[in-house]
C-alpha cells in the first residue's frame, strides 16, 4: 500500500470518528442517528478492506 492510499484510509477513519462522535452527541433526532449510521457503513467496510 503506498503512502497516498494510507492517507485515504486516514481520511476515511477521520470521517468515521467525526460521524461517530456526532452520533454519540446526538440526543434529539432519530433521523440524524439513522443517517449517521448509514453513512458510516460503507466507510467502515472500506476501512476493513471488505469492499
Amino acid at each position, binding site marked *: 500500500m503506498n503512502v*497516498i492510499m494510507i492517507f485515504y484510509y486516514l481520511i476515511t477513519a*477521520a470521517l468515521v470518528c*467525526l460521524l461517530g462522535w456526532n452520533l454519540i452527541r446526538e440526543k434529539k433526532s432519530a433521523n*440524524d442517528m439513522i443517517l449517521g449510521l448509514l*453513512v458510516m457503513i*460503507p466507510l467502515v467496510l472500506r476501512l476493513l478492506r471488505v469492499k
Partner: protein
Amino acid sequence: MTLQIGVLLLLMVAAYAVASLKKLSVELSILAAAVAGGLGGAFLKTPPLGELPRHLVEGMFPYLDVMLVFSTATFFMALVSESGGVNYVVRGAIKLFYNVRVVALLVLMIIILIPGALTGAGSVSILVVGAPVALALKALGIPERKTAAILFIVAGLAAAAPPVNIWAMILCAGTAIPYVGFTYTLGIPVLILGTFTVLWLGLKKEGGMDKAAALAALPPVPPGMKGWRVLVPFVVFFGMVIANRTWPFATPIFGLPLEFSAAAFTAWLVSPRKPDVLKLALNTMKRLLPLLATMIVVGMLQQIMTATGVRGMISYAVISIPLVLLFIGLAVIIPVSEGVLTYGAAAILGIPLIWFFDSIGLHATVAIAGLSILWPLGDGLPPTALIGRLSVMVSDYKGTYWSFLRQTWVPWLVITITSILMVVYSAKLSFLVKWSM
C-alpha cells in the same frame, strides 16, 4: 414481466409517498422506497430475499469517493470562511465596486460560483459564502426575494460548473465516456447564464443604502487578514491539480480529497486566527450529513432498481419516447427527477438517455453538459428542494417558498431552453469539447 416490474415501481413510489406523508426526511423516504422495492422484488426472486442485505450494502458504495470529495472540500471552504477569508473578499468587492454595479454583481457571482465549482455541490456555495454574499446583495439594494433567487440559480450553476460536476461525473462513469472536455462546454454556458441571472434579477436598485452603510452592515474581517492568506490555500489546491496534469508521470495521483485536505491544512496554517479544527470538522460533518446520506440512499435505490428491473424499464420507456417529445419533455423530466432523487436521477434517467443520444449521433459530452445545467434547477423543487430552501434561509426571506420560486422563472426558462438546445445541437457544439482538451 412489464406488469411485474410496473407493480414494483408502484410499490416503491407508494413507499416513498407514505414515508413523506409520515414526515420522514427525504433520505429516509428514499431508503423506504429502496427497501420496499427490494422486499417486493424478493417475491419474484429478483433479487432473492437472502441477497437483499448484500444489495443494500453494496448500493452504499457507488458514491463513496464523491462523499470524500464533499467532506474534504466543504471542510476546506469552512476553514476559509471561518478564518475570515470569505468576508474579506466580499467586503473587498463592495469597497472596490460599489459604484460600478455591474462589476460588483459579477464579482459576487464569481464568489458564489467558486465553492460549488470546486466541490460539485451548490449547497456548499450557499453554506460557505451564501450569508455574506446575501448581505452584500442587500447592500446593493436588492430585495431578499430576489437575493434568494440569485443565490439559488447561481449556486445551481456553480454545481454544474467545472472542474467538478457530479452529474457529469456520474454519467461519464456510467457510460464509460471520459470525464474530459467539459471545461468550456460547461464553463461558457455557466458564465453566460450566471451573468444573465445576476443582471436580470439584480441590476435594478430597489432601495438600499449608501456605500458607507453597506460596508458597516457587512461582517467584520479579522485583523491580519490579507489577500495572500486567502489566495495561498487555493494556490496549493490548484497547484496539485495542475502538477498532476502537467507532469502526470512524475507526480503521484493525489485525488481530489487529498488535494482538498492539503488545501485545508494550508488554510489553517495561514489563517490569522486559528479556528477550533475539531469543532469545525464536527459541525461540517453535521451540516453535510443529509447530503452524504443522500449519496448513500440514492446508491441503494439505484442498486435495487437495477436488480429488480425497474431501472431497465425506465430506460426502455425513455428510449421508446418519440424524439421530439423527449427533447421537450426534458424540461420537466430532468428537474423533477432531481427534486425527487437528487443525484440519483443522473444515474437512473441520465445514463440511458446518454446511451440513447449517443446512438442517434448526438455528441455525448455536450449532451451531458447540457443536461447537467438543467439538473440543478430541480434542487429548488420539492420534495428535496435542497438549494432552494437553503437560499431562502440564508437570504432571510420571509415570504412563502412559492413566491421565492416564482421570482426565478425568467432565468429558469432561459436555462431550460439553453440546456435543451445544447442537447439538440450537441454535434454542432462539439468544438467546445475540442477547445477544452
